[in-house]
């Protein structure tokens, strides 16, 4: 990053150890500005810095906007789903805190991505599509709680795979990549929680992690969400053969990506 190289060439113009430390820690803060967990106002620091970075080629910006608009489409779907679920009263009171938190995160993701696309990359954030969460009358998630939970799991596990599938496309921009990774792990936390909740309620036998390519008791329409999750070979290494650990456990230890087309195929079931 040129900005950091520039900072590296600067020396603090002082002999005071405190001021030197301040300079270096500020430089370190710049170095880590992909770390947005520092409760800084987004618009104030990382976004401002992003605009200060050398301009990437227009084509690269276009492709980043494309990736982020795809992510934003998924976040719109998730946010609307949880918002409607909460408004419908379908959620057990005991689980209200869990779904309020998930809804809040999806809302924050929508706002964050909208901000980055519109005010940093100067693109046009995709508008919220019309959703049909019954998938043509097949599901009743807002009147049947087990169905609500089943689709929640499906959406979260899809989200994890979708973000993972875009890491390579976000590589050219450290800030965007780091943000995407930081959303990706939040989606994984959601997925783990919802999966365990369904099993606790006796609706399934799934664990927080995905075993083989099992859809558990989810409707068969969710098969594409788990296709390929049974992979046990990474970087050319078959980890079952390497370790002697059973394939189920090895498959749980690595989550697999999905391509944009695969994800949009899944999401299209819920587009009005």
């Amino acid at each position, binding site marked *: 990053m040129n900005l950091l190289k520039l900072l590296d060439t600067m020396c603090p113009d002082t*002999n005071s150890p405190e001021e030197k430390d301040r300079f270096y820690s500020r430089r370190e803060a710049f170095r880590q500005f992909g770390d947005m967990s520092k409760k800084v106002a987004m618009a104030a620091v990382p976004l401002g810095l992003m605009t200060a970075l050398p301009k990437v080629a227009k084509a690269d910006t276009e492709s980043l906007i494309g990736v982020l608009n795809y992510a934003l489409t998924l976040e719109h779907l998730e946010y609307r789903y949880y918002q409607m679920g909460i408004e419908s009263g379908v959620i057990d009171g005991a689980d209200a805190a869990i779904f309020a938190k998930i809804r809040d995160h999806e809302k924050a993701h929508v706002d964050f991505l909208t901000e980055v696309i519109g005010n940093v990359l100067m693109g046009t954030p995709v508008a919220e599509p019309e959703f049909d969460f019954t998938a043509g009358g097949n599901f009743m998630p807002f009147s049947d709680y087990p169905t609500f939970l089943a689709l929640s799991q499906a959406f979260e596990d899809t989200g994890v795979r979708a973000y993972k599938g875009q890491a390579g496309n976000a590589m050219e921009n450290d800030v965007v990549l780091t943000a995407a990774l930081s959303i990706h792990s939040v989606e994984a936390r959601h997925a783990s929680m919802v999966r*365990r909740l369904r099993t606790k309620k006796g609706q399934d036998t799934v664990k927080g992690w995905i075993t083989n390519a099992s859809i558990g008791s989810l409707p068969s329409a969710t098969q594409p969400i788990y296709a390929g999750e049974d992979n046990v070979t990474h970087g050319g290494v078959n980890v079952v053969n390497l370790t002697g650990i*059973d394939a189920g456990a090895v498959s749980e230890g690595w989550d697999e990506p999905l391509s944009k087309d695969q994800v949009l195929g899944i999401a299209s079931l819920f587009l009005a």
Partner: protein
Amino acid sequence: MKNDLIKPKALVKKANRRDFLKYSSLSVAGAGLLLMGCDDEEQIPINPAVSLGSGDVGILNYAYALEQLEAAFYATVMTGGYFANASAEEKQIMGDLEKHERAHRDFFKAALGDAAIEDLSVDFSSIDFNSRSSVLMAAKTFEDLGVAAYNGAGQFIENVDYLLIAGKIVSVEARHAAAIRDLINPGTADFAGDDIIDANGLERTLSFSEVLTAASTYVTTPLDGSMLPSS
């Protein structure tokens, strides 16, 4: 929320002169040394440490070090009184995590081949393996640390295949972290708590040095991460 399980011991070798000066009693000489320029990438030998290496190999070794720590932790959990008396659900979770982390560890060792760092020594004397709360708090520390470490390292990975492998593992660590947190505070929002996720819905990231410092509470082998990428 500060994690009180993390007690930095400064075992991690500091690569830059400024920190070296802070840790030595040479601060008087410091001003003079700094006049020679301030490229803080220079090596100052303090004690022989295991170098993680540079570039992508360095990052893979960094991940390998963390997976070694996690695998050793769960292997020890399985031998303790907490596990022996744990509920069926918690036994299953701990057993799964032990297998996942062992698989991660052995995978990195194989992937790194000759470039792999040595087996690290660990010290878990601060953890009571007969105590549910002590084990779960330590597990929470390790899992949250792992997620933040992978999230922070991603931007420095050059090879897209390695980035994908890191991505495949980090979401599993996040699944672990959420489950452990839910065991500690069941049914609450803590599985994805505000202590690690900000107002933008982004999970925290940690830098190489933050993670190595935190890990040094339990990893007694000194690790040298000074050649890891910094831009």
